[in-house]
């Protein structure tokens, strides 16, 4: 579904150029549950940003469903993000000015859905994550776990193909974190591709595939899918 070929990302700093990613080749199939792991500064977030088209690579190509989207204009990238990707962040990143319902409605507004349809779907999604009684509450009135569930509902607003989760349990206690992981697994079971950045090896083991990044390079690619691919290549 997603293919990166020779992708590099460099940043120009005062003292010189920093390579955040170096010549990464990566293929992610539909329905995979992939954990991206590595030490701080290894390039995990950069890789997630490239995958989520939140940033553009300095070199290399990006294929989505075999279609090269590398050089598409910004509005097309925005449309692809809106239609195909959902994001879950470590710090939830909900808008404090909007209620839970309005936060979930936001991405549907960019998709052009009319107000009534946005509201109805947002109500449905929030009830699916167990927050039907918190529709009009502001994020500041919610616990971390509840906010992350709102974020999950928001990520699912436009029925995306891929969920990118950057340390989704990082700011949550373990029991709440477990709830979130189970939700992600449940979504994956329904066919949603999950890409999750995590420091936690235990969480990484729950993924089908584990990518290890160090110093901007993909060091290892473990898991069932990886093995199957190697077998095919062989």
């Amino acid at each position, binding site marked *: 579904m997603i293919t990166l070929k020779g992708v590099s990302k460099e940043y120009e700093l005062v003292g010189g150029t920093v390579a955040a990613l170096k010549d990464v080749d990566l293929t992610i199939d539909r329905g995979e549950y992939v954990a991206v792991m590595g030490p701080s500064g290894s390039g995990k977030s950069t890789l997630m940003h490239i995958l989520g088209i939140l*940033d553009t690579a300095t070199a290399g190509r990006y294929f989505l469903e075999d279609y090269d989207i590398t050089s598409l204009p910004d509005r097309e990238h925005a449309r692809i993000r*809106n239609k195909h990707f959902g*994001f879950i962040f470590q710090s939830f990143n909900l808008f404090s000015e909007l209620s839970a319902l*309005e936060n979930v409605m*936001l991405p549907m*507004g960019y998709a052009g859905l009319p107000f009534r349809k946005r509201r109805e779907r947002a109500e449905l999604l929030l009830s699916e994550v167990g927050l039907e009684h918190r529709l009009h509450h502001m994020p500041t009135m919610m616990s971390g776990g509840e906010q992350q569930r709102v974020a999950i509902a928001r990520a699912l607003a436009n029925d995306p193909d891929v969920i990118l989760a950057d340390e989704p349990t990082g700011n949550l206690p373990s029991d709440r974190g477990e709830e979130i992981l189970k939700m992600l697994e449940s979504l994956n079971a329904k066919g949603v591709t999950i890409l999750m950045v995590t420091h936690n090896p235990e969480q990484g083991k729950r993924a089908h595939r584990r990518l290890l990044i160090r110093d901007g390079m993909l060091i290892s690619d473990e898991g069932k899918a990886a093995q199957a691919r190697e077998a095919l290549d062989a």
Partner: protein
Amino acid sequence: MRSEAGKVVSRRFASRIVESGLLILAVALGVGAASSGFSLLANTLKAGEEMLASPAYRELVVSTRSSAEEMTAPAMKQPANSNVALTVSDLDAAELAPDVAYAYVQNRDEIRFINAQSVAEESAMRASFAAEGVGGGEPDGMAPPGDNVAVVIAGSAEGGAGAAAIASASAGSASTAAAAGRQGLFRGMSEDDLMKAQAQADLVIVDFEELSGFRVTPKFFDAWSLNAAAGSLLADTDAQGDANSVVLGAKAAEKIAAGKMEVSELVGKKLLSRQGNLLVVGVLDAYGETSIDEAFFAPYRTFAAMGGMPRMGFFNTMLRFAVSDPSKLDETADILSSWFESSFGESQITISNPRSEAQKLIDRNAGISVLILFLSLSGLFIALVNVSHILMSRGLRMRKGVGIMMALGASRRAVLGLFASEATAVAIAGSILGGVFAFPLSRTMQSALGLSGGSWLFVLAGVALSWILTMACSIAPAWQNSRIVPAEAMRAA
């Protein structure tokens, strides 16, 4: 606003109400000042054009005084050189100046009407003098009926505004009395006389005491493009003969008619005055200038036409030479100056060009207006720099939120639209409030420069122009805020 993204911006705007209010106020003050400055300059230039379009600024005034302005007061004055006096015949100098379209006389004068109040006051005065045992001494211009007749010629003699010559005739001198009657003499009037006058159908008793106006030669009406709404204008024959003809300005006629009759019915009627019975021969169309509409116009009559010496050297007359092309004023002044110098000698005659004085005033006002505009635009610029800075910093504070919006599918264009909406709202609110400031501010500025009236359209135009500048300065930070990379924005704290 139904858009969730719009709600983010509007709720953030409302949550920082003090900052948002100061933002709008800054725009309002800048727009108000700038639009007042625009309006002031536009009105100043327009007022200047209108002023110079008046016939009063397309003519040269020739007098024996050092300044033509000194001749505006309707009082008898002794000229500096009593041997020099200008007469109607001096208007012939116009034949030497090809650019002179009209040459005429226009001297100030007053009519004093007789009515019940004035008669009562006179009676009281007579009684007072009688009680004091003052025999034969009369207040100026007044005499008991049947005694010496005091002849007051106000403004009708050569010498112009309000000049008076007093001659007394012995009682019973028929020729003198007749002559006095022909010239419009004042007669002390009793209440009985007044009642008899009121019974005359063709005589109008005017309710008020005085009316200011002018003694003119007929060319005056041509020079000022005046037309009669009723009756006719003065003719050359009105300056001779016995009748005291008068033409009334539109508002003067309304005041005299006082709702008792139609204005046009005044034509042919006589007005009872101390100068005699004045025959109304015409009423002018409304001209739009107080000096014309509220005035009367009587024939300028030379002292010779009244039986006096042709050139007494006692009164002063101002001659006016009007040109059709104002650019020819200086050239015409040179020609007239040569002629009058050759006729009267050097330094005896003054030629004044009211247009040049008016132009100096207009230029001064325009200069002040330009300076005020510069200062007000500077104020607008400073305000807009601050507004732009505040909007930029607001955008920076919202940087992470913008990154999240982009992650959720907002394009740069959508983000630009969001910030632009905020900027537009600030610009519109500030401009409306600035417009409210601008109207009284521009009126105050105009009053300070001695201007009145002025079009409110200039204020609106100034507001619109200032709004455009405000939008330009506000959209720039919005555009800059939309150029961020989502990944970098989301890394922001």
